[in-house]
C-alpha cells in the first residue's frame, strides 16, 4: 500500500531518527515531500509511505507509541466549496496539480490525493476558500 501521511513530532522527541527506524525496522519506503524539523521545536513532515499493509500499520503504531502524531494527508488542506467562486486564480499557484480547472465547465476541482500541503493556495485564493485543518 501507499499512503501520504502528515507526521507531527513533539519537541521532546523531534531529534530521534524515526525515518531510519521506519525503513530499517518496518521495511517501509519513505518519500519525504515536505519537512520542517528544527532542534527542540515541534516538527512536521509530509511523507509518502509505501510498503506491505501489515508493516505500514506496525510502523504507524511505532510512531504513535513514541509520541509522534500521524494522520492521513487529506485531513490537512480543505477546499470549502461554498466559499469557492470558481474564479480559477489558484490553478497556476498549485505546484502539485491538486487544484485544476475542469474543461469545458471551467469549474475548479480539488484533488486532495495530489495535495502536498505546500499551503501556497491558502493566501493565493482571493475568496479564502482553502483552509488548513490541523
Amino acid at each position, binding site marked *: 500500500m501507499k499512503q501520504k501521511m502528515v507526521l507531527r513530532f513533539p519537541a521532546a522527541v523531534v531529534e530521534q531518527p524515526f525515518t531510519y527506524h521506519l525503513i530499517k525496522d518496518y521495511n517501509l519506503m519513505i518519500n519525504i515531500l515536505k519537512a520542517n524539523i528544527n532542534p527542540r521545536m515541534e516538527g512536521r513532515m509530509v511523507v509518502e509511505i509505501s510498503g506491505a499493509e501489515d508493516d505500514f500499520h506496525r510502523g504507524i503504531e511505532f510512531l504513535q507509541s513514541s509520541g509522534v502524531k500521524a494522520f492521513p494527508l487529506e485531513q490537512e488542506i480543505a477546499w470549502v466549496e461554498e466559499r469557492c467562486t470558481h*474564479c*480559477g*486564480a489558484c490553478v*497556476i499557484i498549485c505546484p502539485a496539480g491538486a487544484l485544476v480547472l475542469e474543461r469545458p465547465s471551467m469549474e475548479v476541482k480539488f484533488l486532495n490525493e495530489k495535495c502536498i500541503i505546500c499551503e501556497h493556495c491558502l493566501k*493565493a485564493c*482571493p*475568496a479564502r476558500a482553502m483552509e488548513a485543518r490541523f
Partner: protein
Amino acid sequence: MVKKTYAEINARIRAGEAVVVTAEEVIPMVRERGIEETAAAVDVVTTGTFGPMCSSGAFFCLGHSKPRMKMNRVFLNGVEAYAGIAAVDAYLGASQIPETDPANKSYPGEFNYGGGHVLEDLVSGREVLLEAFAYGTDCYPRHKLEKMISLEDMPYAVLYNPRNAYQNYNVAVNLSERTLYTYMGILKPNLGNANYSTADQLSPLFNDPYYRTIGMGTKIFLGGGVGYVCWHGTQHAPGAPRGENGVPTAPSGTLTVIGELKQMSPRWLRGISYLGYGASLMVGLGIPIPILDEEMLKFTAVSDADIFAPIVDYSEGYPQATGEVLGKVSYAELKSGEITLNGRAVPTAPLSSYPGARKIARQLKEWIQEGQFTLTEPVFTIPT
C-alpha cells in the same frame, strides 16, 4: 428583415412566450440555423459576469441617533467609509482597508478584510460595528457613536459601482525575474503564467459591442438582485481598437451600475483578497440583450475564438505605462489552459468565474421566462 421593439419583446415576456437563450446557447443555434432564422426566433440573449470589480461600493444612510450627530468619520468593522456628505450618510468603497491593516509593510500583504468583505457581511445579514466620530455642532451635538448595525437597521443602502463590467481586459504576464503580486493575481517570474479576467463570450459588453441597447436605465442582474445601468463607467474608452466583428481588442467600455443593496445576496457579492495588492469585491452582473434585429443577434453570437485580448507585461509595461503590448490572444486559446508567447508555452488562469457568469446568465433567463423581469429601453445609450 427582422425588426422587434422593446414593447413587442416585453409583451411576449409578459405573456410567457418570449424565447430567451444565454449568450453561450445562442452560438450553436446560429451555427445550425443561421443569423436570420435565429434572430426571428430569439427575443432576448442573456449575459453574465462574476469577477473582481474594485470600483464598487455602497451609499448608506446610517440613521440619526439621539442626540443627533454630524458624522465626519465613519468606520464599519474598522473599515473607513467616506463621510464628507450629509450628517449620517457615507460611502463605503470595496477596496478600502482598515487603518490597522499592515498593508504591504510585510510584503506581500494579505488584505484579509476590507470594504468588499463589509458589504458581503451586510448582505449576509450579519451585524457590523459602526464607529462614528464628529466635531460637534449646535444642531448635531454628539461627538462619538459606537454600536452594532445591520443592513436592516439602515434606512437606505444602495450599491453604486462607478466601474463594472469592463469590456475586455489585459492578459497579465511577468517578464521579470521576481514574483509579482498584482490586481491580476500572482504572476510568476519569467513568463510563469498568464492571468486574464473576463467572462469571455458570456460577458455583457462583448455581446453588444457598440452599446446599442445599453445605457441609462437598462435593467440588469446585479449582486443577485435587480439593478440598473446609470451611466458609462470611469475609464470608459469606446475608441479602443476593434476587430471586424466590432469587439474591442483592448480594455474599452465600462458601466456605472446601481441597485438596492438589501435585495442582494452574498453569493454574488463576495469580499476578496489579492495577495500583495489589496481587498476587493467580486460582483455578479448580467445584462439582457434584446434581439431588435439581425445585427443584435449577430453581436450576441460572438464566441471565444473571435474575441482577442492584449498581453501586457506587469513588471514594466503596465506599471510604467509604456503602452507596450506583447501580442494578442483569443479567449479560446486562453481558456484552453495554455498560450504560446515568445516561443514558450505559458499556463493560463482566469480571475473571473466563468461558472458564475454562466449561472447568472441562466438565472436572468429564468427571470425573463417567468415573466417577472421585463426589459427597459435606455433613456440614452452610453457613448460609443
